[in-house]
């Protein structure tokens, strides 16, 4: 079955990000297809390259990145939500004349159309809310 996942909570601030990660691992284990994981609202902080959790805790941004690389997942961050919250890729950093950027690869910034398209082509959309 084709799934898409929406995450609206930041790591550590709410449990949503951790729950979504565990749910996605189960989806892959049970051989479902993940069309897209979409990070919206405070969920954009899941993509922060600068987050440094204590060593005995899960590094959620890097877990997402690893999972995405391993399984060729499309992990998309809402660009409008991200830019206002200070999560920028190289492109946006350039556009707004910021000297640095902090989006972890392979996360990509894109528009809300990616959420809607995911809803159209997926059998299930599951939201993990903050």
């Amino acid at each position: 079955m084709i799934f898409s996942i929406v995450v609206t909570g930041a790591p550590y601030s709410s449990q949503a990000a951790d729950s979504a990660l565990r749910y996605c691992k189960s989806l892959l284990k049970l051989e479902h297809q993940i069309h897209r994981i979409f990070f919206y609202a405070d969920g954009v902080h899941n993509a922060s390259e600068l987050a440094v959790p204590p060593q005995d805790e899960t590094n959620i941004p890097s877990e997402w990145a690893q999972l995405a690389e391993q399984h060729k997942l499309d992990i998309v961050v809402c660009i409008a939500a991200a830019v206002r919250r200070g999560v920028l890729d190289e492109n946006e950093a350039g556009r707004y004349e910021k000297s640095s950027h902090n989006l972890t690869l392979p996360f990509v910034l894109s528009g809300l159309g990616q959420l809607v398209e995911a809803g159209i082509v997926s059998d299930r959309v599951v939201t993990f809310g903050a």
Partner: protein
Amino acid sequence: MTLHTINKTPTESSALNNCLASLSDGDALLLIENGVYAAMPGYAELFTRLPASIQCYLLGEDSSARGLNDLNPDFRSIDYDGFVELSCRYNKVVSWF
């Protein structure tokens, strides 16, 4: 038929309340994260008016995390694989948070 997930306690938000007001026959409830506290026996009366056709589940990882042992027997404990299976079995998933 719909799978409804609730991730807040009965007092920290109106998520559970709103969910219970929006159920159709044959739907299922799944308590996750802080939502699992609703399965404490002290909250049992919240669920006494549920139609028998509503199946009730909770995520075992979350109830163990919170030290909940003595749980409302109407709730069946499942793991993340079970959560995925329920997501397939029902037509859609509605999240209350």
